[in-house]
């Protein structure tokens, strides 16, 4: 089967084209650097099938970032039958810089002029035939988003793949033209494949080429020596880049007819108008925090739009199955309504199964209904709410706002030794830490990459969300204080604050790299594609469902079994669970968690919090699944009176006597501690072995310290305040004494 590669600048629409050609559902986004790895798919047409490889976006074939190395190695070593060079037609001059480099490789190339519809809508025009002649390559105008020109593109690519193409260079007439030709001949004599490409790179003194072709480097050095006094710029990399841009401007720019001035101004001003507000020097960060709060309010609030004072006592659908689903004294937010509907549905399923199993032995009912279904349903209840939050984040990515967030936070991040670019994998961490860690490959500094990987789990992923929502809801339900949306939002901010403090600490101790520069193209604002959003949400929902019916299913069975058997394998009734294997193991660890507030100070049921946190190491959803499995059993001993959805945690609170600071500490511990197995495995793959081990220790120590501080300050804040005040006062007194002594001397 033939193999074609998709290569082009970041955000030029390669993945959108890849998805449309292969029917894949790879994640696309309106910001540069979404794809950091190659991915393959098959394009089928009537005549033949072609393997398509979607390469990461690159600006050049230099070896500066891992994406550039991946793309360069693939084109040179894997020898694709054709390279489809995806060019953003709205930024054609800059995109053709890469094309001038691809021309130097002996590979058939077809240029896909993407987003041609945007150029035409803006009143511009590209003379495709003229450009084709100038480049000496087939050029096809397409719109990957609308699917136009795709068949023509593939037909021409298949045609091109049948012919051999001889490499050419646009540097022939440059001051380095002769040198490039000489080095190319020398390399050809050594049977080097793609001699022209390697020759240009050698002249640039590209670090990979210098190592590969040491003997030919002498030719370049000799040329430099003989031209030292002839006024030639001896930074050959700069000379090559300059000549490429000059060639693009001279030969290709005339094929582009720009939008008429008035129209262009209008387009610029539309984007500028939005940017004037969203990237304002002062208001940008408060605006970002406000947008994020609105997102959390819509997803988690039980007092939507703060209408409670106007709706006092309002309980729609009273006496029906929908009582308390939409409002209860206050209007619920859409996210909470979805949670309630899902909870009602899972409860209905459980009661249906319980009716079907009526008359079965008690342990069978307990295992299936309380253990397995209780555990799985407690996770599934939160799926709609998680998807809602992820859809907001996805909309922010697709619209181009997330790239602005990286830009506006760059100044703040720079103070802590990171670039705004590092923010993108961190924000991806809100969805899932695994792709976020892989995305750190776009960072050029190794130390910045390690620091970013270490703090990614502090940005709570979708799987941790049920823990936050359930515990925050239970705090409000049981103690009647705060709002679930404010508590959840604050915990997200806490995660970000811990990330910043961790980076500052790393910068002051182990990081000694210079600050990484931040260069990122800001994409135009675009309306998010509903199809992309649906694909993204479906893949997340599928991931949750797969986990629920494999690892969480198995975990709930194991948890139920070890909580209903003793070490000598004797079956226990629900109320005897304190003598179980699980309780024994949990109690053993209780002293360790005492400084965090959920250890020895709790009642005999306190071990459930420790057990839940430990099962969370397999998958974070397990924390709530464990509560779901054990809550029904504890409910036979302690009457909780908790409401639906958060009832399991309310049962735990009633049974253990845990306090609010300890509950907050519990959330913080689960948010910040060692993440799930999948994330740990990714960190192992992405980090050097030594750094991986210290990273595991780092996660545990940070979570332990942060949770202890929360518990101690929350429980004895008045004492802490006095101690701190006394310490500060003592510090001042000592300073004054030292000053006086120094004066006297």
């Amino acid at each position: 089967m033939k193999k074609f590669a998709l290569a082009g600048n970041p955000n030029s629409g390669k993945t959108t084209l890849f998805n449309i050609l292969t029917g894949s559902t790879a994640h696309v986004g309106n910001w540069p650097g979404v794809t950091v790895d190659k991915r393959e798919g098959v394009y089928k047409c009537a005549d033949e099938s072609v393997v398509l490889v979607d390469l990461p976006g690159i600006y050049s074939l230099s070896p500066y970032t891992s994406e550039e190395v991946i793309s360069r190695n693939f084109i040179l070593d894997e020898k694709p039958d054709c390279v489809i060079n995806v060019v953003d037609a709205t930024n054609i001059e800059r995109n053709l810089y890469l094309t001038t480099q691809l021309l130097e490789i002996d590979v058939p190339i077809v240029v896909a002029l993407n987003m041609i519809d945007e150029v035409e809508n803006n009143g511009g025009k590209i003379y495709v035939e003229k450009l084709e002649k100038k480049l000496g390559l087939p050029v096809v105008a397409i719109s990957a988003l609308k699917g136009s020109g795709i068949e023509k593109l593939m037909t021409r690519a298949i045609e091109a793949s049948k012919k051999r193409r001889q490499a050419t260079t646009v540097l022939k007439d440059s001051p380095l033209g002769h040198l490039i030709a000489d080095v190319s001949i020398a390399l050809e004599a050594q049977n080097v494949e793609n001699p022209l490409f390697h020759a240009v790179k050698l002249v640039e003194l590209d670090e990979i080429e210098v190592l590969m072709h040491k003997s030919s480097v002498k030719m370049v050095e000799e040329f430099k020596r003989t031209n030292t006094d002839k006024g030639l710029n001896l930074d050959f990399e700069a000379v090559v880049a300059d000549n490429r841009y000059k060639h693009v401007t001279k030969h290709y720019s005339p094929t582009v007819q720009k939008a008429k001035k008035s129209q262009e101004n209008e387009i610029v001003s539309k984007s500028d108008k939005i940017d004037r507000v969203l990237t304002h020097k002062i208001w940008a960060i408060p605006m970002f925090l406000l947008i994020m709060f609105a997102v959390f309010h819509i997803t988690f609030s039980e007092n939507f739009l703060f209408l409670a004072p106007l709706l006092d006592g309002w309980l729609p659908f009273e006496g029906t199955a929908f009582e308390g689903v939409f409002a209860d004294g206050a209007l619920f937010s859409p996210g909470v309504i979805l949670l309630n509907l899902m909870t009602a549905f899972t409860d209905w399923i459980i009661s249906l199964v319980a009716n079907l199993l009526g008359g079965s032995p008690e342990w069978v009912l307990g295992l299936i209904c309380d253990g397995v279904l209780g555990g799985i349903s407690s996770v599934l209840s939160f799926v709609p709410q998680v998807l809602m939050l992820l859809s907001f984040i996805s909309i922010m990515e697709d619209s181009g706002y997330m790239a602005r967030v990286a830009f506006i936070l760059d100044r703040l991040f720079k103070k802590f030794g990171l670039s705004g670019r590092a923010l993108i994998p961190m924000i991806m961490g809100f969805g899932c830490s695994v792709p976020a860690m892989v995305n750190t490959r776009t960072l050029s500094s190794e130390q910045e990459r390690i620091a970013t990987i270490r703090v990614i789990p502090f940005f709570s992923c979708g799987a941790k969300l049920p823990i936050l929502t359930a515990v925050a809801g239970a705090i409000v339900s049981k103690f009647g204080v705060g709002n679930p949306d404010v508590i959840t939002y604050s915990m997200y901010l806490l995660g970000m604050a811990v990330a910043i403090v961790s980076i500052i600490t790393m910068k002051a101790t182990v990081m000694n790299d210079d600050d990484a520069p931040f260069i990122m193209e800001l994409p135009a604002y675009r309306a998010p594609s509903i199809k992309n959003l649906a694909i993204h949400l479906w893949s997340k929902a599928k991931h949750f469902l797969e986990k629920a019916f494999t690892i969480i299913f198995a975990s709930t069975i194991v948890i139920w079994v070890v909580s209903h058997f003793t070490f000598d394998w004797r079956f226990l009734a629900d109320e005897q669970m304190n003598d179980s294997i699980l309780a024994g193991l949990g109690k053993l660890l209780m002293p360790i968690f005492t400084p965090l507030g959920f250890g020895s100070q709790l009642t005999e049921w306190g071990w459930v919090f420790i057990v839940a946190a430990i099962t969370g190491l397999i998958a974070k959803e397990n924390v709530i699944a464990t509560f779901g499995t054990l809550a029904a059993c504890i409910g036979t001993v302690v009457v909780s009176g908790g409401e639906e959805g958060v009832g399991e945690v309310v049962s735990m609170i009633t049974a253990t006597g845990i306090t609010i600071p300890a509950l907050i500490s519990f959330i913080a511990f689960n948010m910040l501690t060692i993440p799930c197995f999948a994330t740990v495995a990714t960190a192992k793959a992405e980090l050097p072995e030594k750094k991986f081990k210290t990273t595991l220790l780092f996660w545990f120590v940070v979570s332990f310290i942060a949770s202890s501080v929360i518990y101690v300050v929350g429980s004895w804040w008045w004492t802490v305040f006095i101690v701190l005040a006394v310490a500060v006062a003592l510090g001042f007194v000592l300073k004054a004494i030292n000053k006086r002594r120094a004066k006297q001397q």
Partner: protein
Amino acid sequence: MTPIEILTIIGCVAVVSGTIALSIVRKIKAKKSGCAPSCCGCKYASQCQSANKEKTK
């Protein structure tokens, strides 16, 4: 033991051992194809040329 009890025990053993077996098989497959553990279960494992894979080579 009633049939429902036997069925429940068999079902639970099957789910737990099935999940463990699936996880082991995925890891062995991933290791054989040279992928990183984070790529376990990826449908492109046999064709993948990722940096992860190159790292494990």
